[in-house]
């Protein structure tokens, strides 16, 4: 028996526990417990305020109890039907009070909302901005984002579902962006990003597609090289040659993630030897490689042989990347190839037969793709 209890823990430990809790729990469940916790909660300065369907009823109270200078993250999320909560937020909250705000997420935002928010935010601490909109014409919205990037020195910008946003942004070389997420990108927009954002480390896009009438060069002929470290394409549809060209500008990549929403023709991207050569020749610094591809059963007749191409010393010893083939037991036409673990949105059904590069064995499993192999849950 010891005297230790929640209120007697060191402040640093209690703050660490808070870092795993939502703001509502900290304010409504922990703050009233005793004077010490009340004081510790009020001194906590890493609050994340989230207005979403779940928290809407208690949000006004939570907002009132939250020490305003302790708020570093504000998320205003819309509901599934697309209803925006921006106006609700504005009716009860004053964003000017958040003087240490570092990250702002606004869903369902309009041009008017953006102008108002950017005028009201007075802090110089904002470094992360994430927006999405229901509006079809995003050009006006994006035109307001560019000056905001410079005003607030934004380092992380997420423009969810904003297709061809780059051409409306007029990026300048002095921009401090380190992280950029956009929707569909034309090849020339991608090049603009690489050439105008020297500090960019991470880029995520839905697709990179060829400009009409433009032929993608096989490799970069210019001396230009980006220092990009992480590239993600969530709806990858490029050919092998196009990928080669794309990657030739970013030889220092240490993370590459390629996932495809639709089934692809069974070709090189399903071949471990292809990726082994590709990475050896083009991406010598690559430390993290993630793929998720889907194909039909045509042309796939021997899983055991296919998995051996991902069990070479390059995959197993040098890179230590685990790969699995699987077919969904409920949808036998689809075959998946993916690295393990991977965060990929494939819907809710996970039951599948899986053969892994770990041991070449076939197992029935419903393990989430974002978790490692599990010896007890996966049945041979």
């Amino acid at each position, binding site marked *: 028996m010891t005297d230790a209890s929640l209120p007697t823990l060191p402040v640093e430990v209690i703050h660490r526990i808070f870092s795993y809790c939502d703001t509502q729990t900290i304010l*409504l469940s*922990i703050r009233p417990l005793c004077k010490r916790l009340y004081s510790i909660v009020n001194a906590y300065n890493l609050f994340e305020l989230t207005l979403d369907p779940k928290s809407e009823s208690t949000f006004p*109270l939570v907002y009132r109890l939250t020490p305003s200078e302790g708020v570093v993250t504000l998320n205003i999320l819309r509901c599934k039907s697309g209803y925006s909560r921006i106006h609700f937020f504005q009716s009860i909250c004053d964003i000017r009070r958040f003087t240490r705000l570092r990250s702002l997420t606004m869903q369902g935002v309009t041009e008017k909302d953006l102008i108002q928010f950017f005028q009201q935010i007075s802090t110089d601490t904002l470094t992360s901005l994430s927006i999405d909109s229901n509006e079809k014409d995003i050009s006006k919205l994006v035109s307001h984002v560019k000056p905001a990037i410079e005003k607030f020195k934004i380092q992380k910008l997420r423009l969810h579902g904003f297709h061809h946003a780059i051409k409306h942004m007029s990026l300048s070389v002095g921009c401090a962006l380190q992280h950029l997420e956009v929707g569909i990108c034309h090849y020339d927009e991608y090049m603009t990003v690489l050439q105008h954002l020297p500090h960019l480390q991470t880029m995520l896009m839905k697709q990179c597609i060829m400009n009409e009438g433009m032929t993608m060069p096989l490799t970069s002929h210019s001396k230009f090289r980006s220092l990009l470290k992480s590239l993600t394409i969530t709806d990858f549809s490029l050919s092998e040659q196009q990928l080669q060209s794309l990657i030739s500008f970013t030889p220092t990549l*240490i993370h590459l993630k390629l996932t495809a929403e639709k089934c692809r023709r069974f070709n090189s991207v399903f071949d471990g030897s292809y990726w082994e050569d590709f990475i050896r020749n083009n991406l010598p610094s690559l430390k993290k490689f993630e793929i998720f591809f889907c194909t039909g059963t045509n042309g796939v007749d021997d899983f055991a042989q296919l998995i051996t191409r991902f069990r070479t010393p390059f995959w197993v010893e040098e890179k230590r990347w685990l790969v699995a083939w699987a077919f969904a037991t409920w949808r036998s036409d689809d075959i998946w190839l993916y690295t393990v673990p991977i965060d990929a949105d494939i819907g809710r059904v996970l039951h599948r037969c899986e053969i892994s590069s770990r041991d070449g064995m076939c197992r029935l499993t419903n393990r989430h793709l974002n*978790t490692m192999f599990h010896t007890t849950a996966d049945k041979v």
Partner: protein
Amino acid sequence: MATTTDSSNTSATTTTENATSKTIKIQSNDGETHEIDQGVVEQSSTIKTLSDLMDLGDVPIPLPNVKGSILTPIVEFCNYHKNDPKPEPLDDDDDDDPNKDIYEPKRSDDICEWDQNFIKRFTVQEGTLFDIIMATVGCKTIANMVRGKASSEVREMFNISYDPPGEGLNAPNAIESQAGTVPTTQDTSATGPSPQPDPMN
């Protein structure tokens, strides 16, 4: 503190085989001594720093803040996790993961099965859970226990009495009962950095 799965644990066995040759001794504040290998030493910055600075030979490193009953399971935990893959920074020049967002909430639902069973041995009633809480897994577990609970439930869970009782500051449901009477104007005095009179009273 690392959390991992069985498979990743076994897959990394080759990485630290060479690190197990040297052993050192550590001693709890009640005199219990453990001999640990370099794989375990590497997981504790305190022990590693001390062992690097001093050549103590056979003399155990004293750990005055740790009891024997807690040190034993800590050594067991570290022994289990010593072969976990080390979380490598993606960039050699910069420890920051380019994809890491330090302002995103941390996950607390990624405690592996072994760790979950391990933490079950430490209970709130015996107070031992709070002795081991310096480990991340302990903080995550506490967060999971209190998330979404009413303050009265948390109070009961951790056996916390009001201080001082009856004054309303910590009265059960003092906050929850106000949830339906949300003010529409801002009361800035209620949100200062130092403890203020509770706005509900």
